[in-house]
């Protein structure tokens, strides 16, 4: 059974009907293929209509879709010889962030990403993709390893945020994120980041200080979740619902399209009609193309130039006015 989001309900009805007709035509001798074809066309049109007009909140729910491809899915689809490397060498291995060497197009690179789980058991194991400080420290260890061997780094961003827990605070969640932000700004090999689902605040950015940043079409990236924003704005505690979250999502301007307009990201990676989970191989192919091209572009730069340009890129971030101008 496919999982349908609230706004996909009309599509769900049609698709269930199509499935029923298909079963019917298998069993009986009657020919209803033309009927099915007609409905399939209608379903496609409906999908196209719905998906070209998604609201920011609908995109947020799509970015969190339980069948959406995660970091490991993309690693499986686009790389060869992936070997996962574990642990921060300090305290623990955090399953909410994974990483390791792999090859794309015969080039070795370091791939690091947030990892959500599929199914209740794995979701809990991965802590819903919310890293502990150890996850960030492991990521930095792996980035330094890549730097030592002059390998480019690709990060996949997909987290609701860094985990807000007692242990995380005791072991320095702020320090772990801050250190990654600073160190990533001066890693001497190319870094490419792709937001594949949820880019949740500092916990996302801690893997996202890069030379090129891309977002997959229906992903979101924001300083705070629509739920968090709504709770601050309309502090009603408990009885906030989809209506308020939708308003907050609108206000936050968190879609890939918004961020491209703001020049915070370099480009958008297209998804198939109906979202990445409808054809993850197609999205993976688009991601691979972008990664290969970016690495080609960046590999001609010296380490000094790479870091200089990365700094300039960060320095431009902001929306400012100057007195007298």
């Amino acid at each position: 059974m496919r999982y349908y989001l609230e706004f996909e309900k009309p599509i769900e009805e049609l698709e269930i009907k199509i499935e029923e007709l298909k079963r019917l035509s298998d069993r009986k001798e009657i020919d209803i293929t033309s009927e099915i074809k007609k409905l399939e066309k209608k379903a496609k049109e409906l999908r196209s209509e719905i998906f070209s007009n998604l609201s920011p909140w609908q995109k947020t729910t799509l970015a969190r879709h339980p069948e959406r491809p995660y970091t490991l899915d993309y690693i499986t689809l686009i790389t060869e010889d992936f070997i996962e490397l574990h642990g921060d060498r300090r305290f623990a291995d955090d399953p909410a962030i994974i990483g390791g060497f792999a090859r794309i197009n015969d080039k070795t690179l370091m791939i690091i990403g947030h990892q959500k789980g599929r199914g209740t058991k794995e979701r809990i194991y991965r802590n819903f993709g919310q890293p502990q400080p150890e996850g960030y420290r492991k990521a930095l260890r792996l980035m330094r390893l890549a730097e030592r061997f002059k390998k480019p780094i690709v990060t996949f961003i997909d987290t609701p945020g860094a985990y807000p827990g007692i242990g995380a605070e005791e072991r320095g969640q702020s320090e772990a994120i801050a250190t990654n932000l600073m160190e990533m700004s001066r890693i001497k090999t190319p870094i490419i980041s792709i937001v594949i689902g949820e880019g949740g605040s500092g916990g996302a950015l801690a893997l996202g200080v890069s030379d090129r940043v891309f977002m997959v079409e229906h992903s979101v990236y924001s300083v705070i979740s629509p739920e968090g924003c709504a709770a601050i704005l309309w502090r009603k505690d408990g009885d906030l619902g989809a209506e308020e979250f939708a308003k907050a999502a609108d206000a936050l301007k968190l879609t890939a399209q918004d961020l491209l307009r703001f020049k915070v990201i370099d480009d958008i990676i297209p998804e198939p009609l109906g979202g990445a989970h409808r054809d993850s191989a197609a999205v993976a192919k688009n991601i691979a193309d972008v990664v290969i091209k970016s690495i080609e572009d960046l590999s001609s730069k010296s380490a000094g130039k790479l870091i200089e340009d990365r700094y300039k890129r960060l320095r431009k971030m902001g929306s400012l006015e100057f007195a007298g101008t």
Partner: protein
Amino acid sequence: MWFKKTKEPKVQKKVKIPEGLWVKCDNCKEIIYKKEIDKNLKVCPKCNYHFRISAKERIKLLADEGTFIELDSDISSSDPLKFKDSLTYPERIKENQKKSGMQEAVISGEALLSGTPVIFVIMDFSFMGGSMGSVVGEKIARAAETALEKKLPMISVASSGGARMQEGIFSLMQMAKVSAAIGRLKDNGVPFISVLADPTFGGVAASFAMLGDVIIAEPRSLIGFAGPRVIEQTMKQQLPDNFQRAEFLLEHGLIDTVVSRENMKETLAKLIRLLA
């Protein structure tokens, strides 16, 4: 930003300091004559609680008299998201300027500290909860660049709920911007001392504030990534005593030392002498 959702769990309603002759201490609930607190650097004489103070008061405490020269005061924020809650973002800024007497949530400048020139970056919690948007980020990055250019030590005093929601993704990106600027100080051996005042949370804690070569906190300041109420809701358990207080961070090896307001200037001067 998380901090905005929260109130310290065991502390009751905050009392505004400026009005009235008498003040109730946020920590020990003692009623104290206001002048007595003012005389005592806004520290409760009964329990040593450090009241939040403005950036201007902080400058008076730390910079040698009459030496502070403000930097980059001409930058203001635009409204990239056209953000509106009960007020538009520009209205919100105006309201906070009036309320706090600050242009923005941070003042930066060059000054003498016990005779030695330093670059100061001082946050003011009374301006939109000390939140970091484009202006705050830009002023901190520029201050770091000035410190680098002049090879002067930089001292920051953080007091902030985190990133500024009203500027959305631009606020988030300030975290990367200021951290990269601090990185350049480290590359070039320019000292950066970070002072953490009550409260220091979210995007400010998770960027420059935790990147000091030396990190000093004021006693009992609340410091963390996520606000205590968010954590309490996530963990569904009571938070440990002293959780996220300066002393808790010291015990867990996250900061170098806790220094009272009275001794702060002297400590900073000593450190700068030692690092020179």
